[in-house]
């Protein structure tokens, strides 16, 4: 895959320095004259000529060499253009449940300016219930969305109306461009967003000319007058106060040479500047300069070029910057760390104002414009906002998924555009939910501050698109990614898989089948014995299957699992996308299987989707630098289990959240917000898990300690709180399960016998057709049950 980015490069035949050398040789030959000269003189001349020729040749050869270096650098791949990573675009349509808070956040995330009256692209205004937005143009993987001005009416229940501003017709659906959330820069850490000459605002060029190289358009790469002026100024000052380097020299210095300081390097630099100037036109040089210049550092990442500079400091495309903003960037050329506007705002302001002053003095801008620009604040956003560093966990996942299909060098250099599934709104809510709840739990349970860690993964339930991924408490810290790499025992989160394996045998097991909660004592290979216990340390005897799962009874589960067999459980885990080695020990039935939160999400996505598993995806499409589609990652589904059995199981998982171990959700989620899920707790309360889903989202949260020490938290006291906080905060469709083909409801009594709907206590249970109980009772002929129920109510 080669970069198709075309750069106009005039091809000039031959090379002039070489020609110049041969001319010189001709002249030297012509200088031999006067036969009557003494031999000595002659020899002297000859020697001089030979030396001159040799020098000329050497210089010529060297120039040829330099020229070639220049050409390779310029015409070949000038910049490794890192792949740009985008979030999902926001679909706006009537009926979308998007509130004003979310819409505002999405627009700010895109770097749109909030104004009182919208007058151009990338601006928005907010009135009472109405947003006016002027969108930027954007090319998606399936075509372009034109930039246009729209008005969006919101009510408490979402978007009511969308119209083209000034137009009459309603817009049914449109997309707002996705936010740029990161890039994949190469190992030498140079990150950049390439710009073309046409993207560079004139006031930026003027600023550069004003303070760096006034005669840029007049000199030939080296400005002797500039050097003389600088020299004079430096002599007067007694120290270096001015540089005489042209933009071309600066470019060559950054671009081609090392930072060593020597006379030799200076000579090289000047020579190459001359070559560059001879070979390329001024606009090409300017474009190269604009993409090369170093403008800042963030951790290990070097910010190169005005394109990324604009993103990094202002979260906007370069072309949208205003005068005071470009002046700030120009000011950074002199010293990006010394004038770092985030660390040294006052210095940065003085430098910026100096740039504005010079532009004014040279007549590039009017006095009024200069005054206005000087009156502006710096306008720099918080550190690295919206460019990858707020969401390192997700970008990490994207990189890992991309590495399966692309070579590292293509990712870091080909200017690919990666469209991901990240929902910035859900992501931001997830980060807040985790941080907030962990802090609360620590306070409530008197735990050491900061001792708890956590991870949170959210995916679309039916498609498996990762919408948010939080790898730890400090969401801006690009360290250990717990969502992917904290591989922990999953405890009771495995139970649904065990029960599913049972329910897939409808002749043996239904939701109402009585199973035995009795002591387990098994010999292990090492001569040890395995004697698991229930969390409440009780033994419950015969319990209905659904109750055993709802109450997460360990003994009933082990007995059930041993009857069903470990193989079906393992097969089921495989079918739901777990690729890791799984040991076929009975303890597997209680979750002695270590998985990452992401892997758990994969299992529960399959359940949430009614048994149709989709490989979790973080990427939708990849375009090349010319916006041509390279690859799509389409929606695929694979049936991993019988939908009828999954339906029964999911009914049971709803019960978990209503009366079972997850009943705490009832007080945490809005009433009527039906969800299904399962708590998980591991030995000594080391890991606290909750995995569950609504109709359209599946989410998994984990809470534990990095040192794997006990937290004192069950799944319900820890991870469930985080999960609930998030799900309450974001839009969810309540879960409602449609019985698939082959599922029938039957009325049964408390003993699990068929009964009539009008009998007291009759409950309708779903059964896979034919598996319903065969015993039938008539409530009127069963005084015992009636008496039992009467006792309850008296």
């Amino acid at each position: 895959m080669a970069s198709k980015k075309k750069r106009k490069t005039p091809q000039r035949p031959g090379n002039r320095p070489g020609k110049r050398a041969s001319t010189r040789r001709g002249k030297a030959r012509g200088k031999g004259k006067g036969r009557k000269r003494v031999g000595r003189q002659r020899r002297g001349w000859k020697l001089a000529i030979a030396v001159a020729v040799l020098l000329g040749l050497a210089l010529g050869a060297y120039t040829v060499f330099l020229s070639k270096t220049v050409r390779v650098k310029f015409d070949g791949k000038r910049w490794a253009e890192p792949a740009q990573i985008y979030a999902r675009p926001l679909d706006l349509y009537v009926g979308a449940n998007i509130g004003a808070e979310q819409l505002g956040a999405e627009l700010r995330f895109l770097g749109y300016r909030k104004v009182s009256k919208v007058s151009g692209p990338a601006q928005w205004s907010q009135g009472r219930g109405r947003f006016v937005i002027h969108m930027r143009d954007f090319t998606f993987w399936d075509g372009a969305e034109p930039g246009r001005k729209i008005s969006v009416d919101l009510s408490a229940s979402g978007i009511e109306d969308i119209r083209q501003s000034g137009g009459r017709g309603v817009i049914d659906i449109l997309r707002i461009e996705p936010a740029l959330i990161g890039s994949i820069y190469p190992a030498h850490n140079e990150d950049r967003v390439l710009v073309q000459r046409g993207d560079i605002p004139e006031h930026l060029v003027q600023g550069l000319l004003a303070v760096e190289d006034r005669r840029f358009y007049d000199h030939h790469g080296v400005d002797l007058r500039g050097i003389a002026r600088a020299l004079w100024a430096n002599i007067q000052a007694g120290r270096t106060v001015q540089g005489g380097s042209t933009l071309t020299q600066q470019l060559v210095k950054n671009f081609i040479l090392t930072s060593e300081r020597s006379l030799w390097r200076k000579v090289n630099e000047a020579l190459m500047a001359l070559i560059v100037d001879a070979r390329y036109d001024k606009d090409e040089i300017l474009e190269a300069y604009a993409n090369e210049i170093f403008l800042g550092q963030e951790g290990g990442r070097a910010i190169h070029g005005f394109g990324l500079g604009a993103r990094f400091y202002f979260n906007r495309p370069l072309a949208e910057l205003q005068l005071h903003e470009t002046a700030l960037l120009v000011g950074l050329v002199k010293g990006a760390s010394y004038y770092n506007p985030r660390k040294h705002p006052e210095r940065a302001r003085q430098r910026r104002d100096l740039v504005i002053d010079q532009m004014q003095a040279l007549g590039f801008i009017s006095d009024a414009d200069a005054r206005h620009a000087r009156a502006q604040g710096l306008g720099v956003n918080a550190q690295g906002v919206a460019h990858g560093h707020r969401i390192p966990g997700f970008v990490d996942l994207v990189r890992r998924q991309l590495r399966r299909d692309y070579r590292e060098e293509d990712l870091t250099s080909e200017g690919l555009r990666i469209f991901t599934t990240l929902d910035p709104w859900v992501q931001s809510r997830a980060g807040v939910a985790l941080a907030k709840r962990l802090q609360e739990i620590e306070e409530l349970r008197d735990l050491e501050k900061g001792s708890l860690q956590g991870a949170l993964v959210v995916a679309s339930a039916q498609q498996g698109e990762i919408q948010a991924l939080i790898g730890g408490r400090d969401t801006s810290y690009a360290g250990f990614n717990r969502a992917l790499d904290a591989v922990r025992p999953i405890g009771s989160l495995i139970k649904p898989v065990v029960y599913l394996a049972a329910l897939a045998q409808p002749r043996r097991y239904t939701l109402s089948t009585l199973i035995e909660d009795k002591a387990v004592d098994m010999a292990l290979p090492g001569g040890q014995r395995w004697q698991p216990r229930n969390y409440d340390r009780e033994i419950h005897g015969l319990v209905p299957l659904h109750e055993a799962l709802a109450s997460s009874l360990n003994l009933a589960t082990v007995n059930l699992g041993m009857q069903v067999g470990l193989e079906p459980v393992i097969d089921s885990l495989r079918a739901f996308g777990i690729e890791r080695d799984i040991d076929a020990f009975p303890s597997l039935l209680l979750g002695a299987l270590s998985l990452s939160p992401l892997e758990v999400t994969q299992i529960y996505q399959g359940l949430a989707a009614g048994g149709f598993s989709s490989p979790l995806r973080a990427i939708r499409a990849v375009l090349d630098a010319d916006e041509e589609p390279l690859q799509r990652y389409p929606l695929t589904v694979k049936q991993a289990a019988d939908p009828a059995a999954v339906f029964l199981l999911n009914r049971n998982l709803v019960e978990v959240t209503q009366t079972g171990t997850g009943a705490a959700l009832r007080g945490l989620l809005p009433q009527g917000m039906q969800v299904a899920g399962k708590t998980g707790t591991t030995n000594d309360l080391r890991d606290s898990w909750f995995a569950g889903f609504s109709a359209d989202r599946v989410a998994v949260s984990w809470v534990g300690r990095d040192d794997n020490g006990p937290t004192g938290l069950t799944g319900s006291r820890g991870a469930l709180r985080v999960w609930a906080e998030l799900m309450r905060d974001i839009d969810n469709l309540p879960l409602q399960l449609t019985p698939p083909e082959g599922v029938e409801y039957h009325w049964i009594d408390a003993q699990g016998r068929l009964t009539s709907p009008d009998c007291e206590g009759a409950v309708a249970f779903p059964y896979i057709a034919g598996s319903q109980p065969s015993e039938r009772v008539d409530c009127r002929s069963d005084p015992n049950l009636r008496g039992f129920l009467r006792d309850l109510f008296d």
Partner: protein
Amino acid sequence: MKYFKKPFSTRLRLLFTLLLASALGACGGLSRTDRPAQVEERGKPPATTTAVPNQTQIAAYTPPAQPRYSRPAPKRAVAVLMRRADDQKRAGDLDGATVSLERALRIAPDDALLWHRLAGVRMAQQRHQLVVQLASKSNALTAAGERSLRSDNWRLIAVARRALGDSAGARDAEQRANALH
């Protein structure tokens, strides 16, 4: 759509717990998150609301209705995308049609018809295994009453199975399709 409130009492809750009525969770299910007091009745059977001592409140069983959006269904957006996918498919832009349908499915993930259409586009691309999966998914989301959509899905499955060399499976799917027709 008629709304009613859930009756609740301590006793009821006791019974409720004992009978695990809520296991079935069929509390009629659907209320908007910001409209908590109202529960949308789905003409559905059982469970919590019917497990009350007063026998007159026990409703006769009827199969659950087709899932419904708790918010005004974004019908127009979905319809526009479905139409666009049709146009794209007709014009031979099968990738484009896939993208449009996937986009619609993000808006209405449990719309059985969208899954069926996606299976249809995949059929045109000869992705037969995926066709079987997508059509089965559509069937799993189709309410019992919608026989014609089920039938169409089985027909797609039959064609795909035949293309995959599974003639017994294809015959079985055809029979199911015909039985529903």
